[in-house]
């Protein structure tokens, strides 16, 4: 019976922690909605003008739009209406596509999600392997090379890296296609189609992954070096365990947590990288939608994308916090 106690205590603490974090989610999202509402109303001139930009619009459309935003009502009612609309998934209408903003975003999200997850998974794997290799031989030539790569890889602008990759691997070596998600000239089906799409994915995914390979490499390397200097590793070594066993079973396991956490906390930044990568590679996801929205001053779409991305970021951060607390009990005891 004695041993059951800490377990139950641990569960109840985890529950308290989860609830405390969960309560923050709607507050954060509410804050974001307030920021967006204020922005539209702070914009120079009339919110309708701000939302429509330079777009040609008929007087009837403007009148309809004004009523939709409730601009004839007092400010607090306008705000409530806005919150009401957002809560019902009404992020406004794109005047360029004449379609619901949410529908547009949900249509374009799958390719972006595919690109992002491929890039982040690849980055985690490559970054960890590089980190282990470098940490096994600190201050060697391999270590120095990997460190230099990390500094440059972290700083390279993703859209330029994309252009370089196109120039070398697509235009000159002709190893990979230049644009798009699949070949438009051939109509592949089944496994051939999957292979064709994978072939299109490689270049943009690696370009997007580069920054995260650098981050994951540095985290893994410094995590392992730190763990390796601690006493239980000395104990493991003293027991006579092979250094490879020590490295993988003891050091790596403890060094992995920051990699997972940082990937989770970086998801907003990774999404902006995905948008830029998509623009370079003609990838038909949120990036293409963002570029078109900018070109046509389609503000409802840009605001919708912002709200969508922020919601995703808040939720991923929430999950990351939970995973972190589950793995590391010190967090939830604070």
């Amino acid at each position, binding site marked *: 019976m004695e041993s059951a106690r800490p377990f139950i205590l641990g569960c109840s603490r985890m529950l308290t922690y989860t609830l405390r974090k969960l309560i923050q989610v709607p507050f954060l999202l509410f804050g*974001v909605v307030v920021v967006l509402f204020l922005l539209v109303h702070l914009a120079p001139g009339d919110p309708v003008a701000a939302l429509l930009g330079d777009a040609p619009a008929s007087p009837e459309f403007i009148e309809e739009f004004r009523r939709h935003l409730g601009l004839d009502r007092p400010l607090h009612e306008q705000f409530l209406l806005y919150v009401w609309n957002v809560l019902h998934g009404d992020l406004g209408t794109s005047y360029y596509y004449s379609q619901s903003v949410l529908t547009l975003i949900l249509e374009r999200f799958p390719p972006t999600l595919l690109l992002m997850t491929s890039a982040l998974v690849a980055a985690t794997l490559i970054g960890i392997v590089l980190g282990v290799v470098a940490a096994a031989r600190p201050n060697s030539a391999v270590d120095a090379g990997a460190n230099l790569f990390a500094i440059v890889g972290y700083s390279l602008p993703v859209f*330029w890296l994309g252009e370089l990759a196109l120039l070398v691997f697509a235009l000159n070596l002709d190893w990979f296609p230049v644009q798009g998600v699949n070949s438009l000239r051939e109509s592949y089906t089944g496994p051939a189609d999957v292979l064709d799409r994978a072939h299109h994915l490689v270049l943009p995914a690696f370009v997007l992954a580069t920054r995260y390979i650098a981050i994951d490499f540095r985290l893994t390397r410094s995590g392992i070096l730190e763990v390796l200097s601690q006493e239980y590793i000395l104990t493991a070594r003293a027991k006579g365990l092979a250094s490879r066993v020590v490295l993988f079973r003891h050091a790596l396991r403890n060094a992995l947590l920051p990699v997972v956490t940082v990937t989770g906390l970086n998801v907003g930044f990774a999404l902006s990288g995905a948008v830029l990568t998509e623009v370079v590679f003609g990838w038909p996801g949120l990036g293409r939608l963002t570029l078109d929205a900018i070109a046509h001053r389609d503000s409802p779409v840009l605001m919708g994308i912002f709200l969508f991305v922020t919601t995703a*970021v808040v939720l991923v951060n929430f999950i990351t916090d939970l995973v972190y607390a589950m793995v590391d009990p010190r967090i939830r005891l604070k």
Partner: protein
Amino acid sequence: MKGSVPPLWRRFLSEPPTIAGAALVGVLLVLAVPAHLITPYEPLRALYPQFLPPLSGDHWFGTTATGRDLFAAVAHGARVSLAVGIVVALLSTIIGIVVGSIAGYAGGWTDDALMRVTELFIIIPRFFLALVVVSIFGNTLGNIVLVLALLSWPPVARVVRAEYLSLKEREFVQAARLVGSPSWRIVAREILPNAMGPAIIVGSLQVAQAILTEASLSFLGLGDPSLPSWGSILVDAQRFLKSAPWIALFPGFAITIAVVGFNLLGDGLARAINPRSGSRLRT
């Protein structure tokens, strides 16, 4: 042990990575500051033959698809990028110091409220909010700098607040309070000077970030159209990547040099001010 700790600037300039960073930033400063003196060409004038390769006569970097002198565009672009990076870092550091000081010194609900706002601004994806704001308020240099500064202060506010919380309880601050010094004097004389180090470390890291974000905005067509910009040259460059790769190479190198340089300088500054902190990558 007199002289056991070398002066700050010597610690700062004693490490190879920091020296490399200073050299990279130095190259860009040499291009940016006298840009109008070192090249006779105007960056935005499309007056010259198109697609000249590098080293064609006086066109050191060649010319672009629209017949602009690429060297002039890159050099004048350096001016804009460095100005954006440095001004954004300065402004966001000042905002961060003000917010962090108020939260840390006042404590209580003021602290709570300000920290909730700070958390909100930390979690908001900066790039996407910048897109919305610049597209609604107009893509002028002033708006771009302002929005980047308004989105970059939270990390500074956090460290400043943390410094205040720990400094408030220290003996020398308690002593000042006991002798009856007014709050403003305690803050100005005792606390703020000690909180400046961490604020400058975190603030300096915003330079590279701001340069990268401005280039990204320009790449999506939201740069200031009246100024030369590295990011916007890369938009046109992509269409002629195979036939005229130099149009993409030079401005891209310039962005990379700027970001690597300022990242190395920021890390060096952190190690010099606070020798305990190792090198790290920001997230």
